[in-house]
């Protein structure tokens, strides 16, 4: 006689042990699945600022952050120093990059955008990024670099997990102060190029064109009306009295 287990006809006592083995295997598998699920849950991204509720838009960041507010008092080293990694296009170390490697290690995509920079720990941000300190966010709102770019290691803005990556910039950075910021809103160019510079024609063409268009209108108005009005004033001084009278 016997029982049918997995398509095989086997004897009764033997069938019980086989069944128990199958059950144990299933239990083990489900335990692993559960563990994987828990691991997966812990690996979720952090809560974005856009997902919380807040009343004040302007003072919000300063109210909520845990910090002394003195950002430049300490500098930490980037996590890994890789002496052979250099700036793409600049040959450094024993093996310069192939085009593929350069594409991978390009500085706007690194987990630590400053990796490999010599004496990095002794430098302040504006030593290299002078122009980036001359915008409204820095000058008027008194923001420091770290309030948006974060602590060390500072991820490149296009690194996949960077808070400043355009896919999450609005939620992770902008909405700290500008509650409700959208992705479109976050495409505002914080470190805007100087609109008057010819290089802006390459980096932000519409800004350059509109700037010079408006300047042309303003300067044109004054080129016409300033000499015109001065000449008019002078002419009226020398206008004969009898002509003014009647």
């Amino acid at each position: 006689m016997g029982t049918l287990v997995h398509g095989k006809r086997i004897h009764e006592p033997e069938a019980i042990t086989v069944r128990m083995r199958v059950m144990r295997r299933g239990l083990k598998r489900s335990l692993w699945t559960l563990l994987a699920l828990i691991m997966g849950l812990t690996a979720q991204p952090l809560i974005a600022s856009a997902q919380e509720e807040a009343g004040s838009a302007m003072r919000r960041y300063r109210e909520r952050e845990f910090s002394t507010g003195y950002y430049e008092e300490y500098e930490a080293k980037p996590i890994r120093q890789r002496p052979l990694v250099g700036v793409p296009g600049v040959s450094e170390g024993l093996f310069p990059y192939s085009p593929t490697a350069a594409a991978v290690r390009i500085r706007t995509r690194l987990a630590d955008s400053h990796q490999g920079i010599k004496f990095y720990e002794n430098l302040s941000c504006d030593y290299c990024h002078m122009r980036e300190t001359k915008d409204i966010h820095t000058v008027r709102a008194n923001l420091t670099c770290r309030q948006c770019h974060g602590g060390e290691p500072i991820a490149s803005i296009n690194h996949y997990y960077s808070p400043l990556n355009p896919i999450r910039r609005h939620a992770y950075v902008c909405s700290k102060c500008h509650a409700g910021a959208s992705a479109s809103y976050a495409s505002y160019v914080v470190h805007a190029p100087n609109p008057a510079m010819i290089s802006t024609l390459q980096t932000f063409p519409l800004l350059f064109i509109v700037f010079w268009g408006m300047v042309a209108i303003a300067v044109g108005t004054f080129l016409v009306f300033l000499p015109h009005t001065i000449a008019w004033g002078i002419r009226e001084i020398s206008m004969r009295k009898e002509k003014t009278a009647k």
Partner: protein
Amino acid sequence: MKPSGKIRLKRFSVGQRIFHLLLMLSFLTQGATGLARMYIETDFGKGLASFFGGYERALAIHKYVGILMICGFLVHLLYLIVSIDWSQYKSSLFGPDSLIPTPGDAREFIHHICWFFGLIRAPRFDRWGYWEKFDYWAVFWGIPILGITGLILAYPLISTRVMPGWGLNIAFWIHRIEAILAMAHVFIIHFFIGHLRRTNFPMDRAMFEGSVDLDVASHEKPFWVARLAQTGKLEGMLVPESKPGRRILFYVFGYAAMMVGVFLLIGGLVNSPYITW
């Protein structure tokens, strides 16, 4: 030259004068609050901002007054629609009483410049000189430009739903340059023509008193006076000069506005190298 003492010719209605007054006050407020923020890094800007209650308060006032100006502009559009004689819209729009520029204005402009250099006799104007038409259209173009970019910048969360966020960078520069142009034009050209040229010195009271000196009008705008005399309207438009007390008020107010403007102009020019543009 009427023996009755009516020596001035009516030029602006009460409504027009009230609108000019509102425009003056709001324009100066916008100029002062805007420059307060633009120059906040300098003592000039800090002083201006403190007058309005600080950096944030200056912006709040700037936004409210800006919305007020947009409303004023919309009311003015309604006023235009009502005051145009649509049954004879051609003569109403392009006639001598209209502010719409015509080829004749370009001719008068060139003649006027030739007269500055003594080449020909002074051109004789009708009701509106080309410089007055330019002043009008400068505001007519300026308010929508500043108003639209201003609204975009004041409500960035809403405006970036329909435009990309980098449009804010562009709107900011349009707003700034147009505002500088408007202020420089009013504080230099408009004030010079209205106050300092010999015919008007010390001040053209037309926009406050509502009337102009008949002698001056018949010298500078003879076609207008002749047209009024021809159609028999001249007699009814003659008014006496206002009382000395009111005249003093006009002068004090006009000069106060001019001083505010010149203060903003000089402060802005002197401090321009010391700000982050």
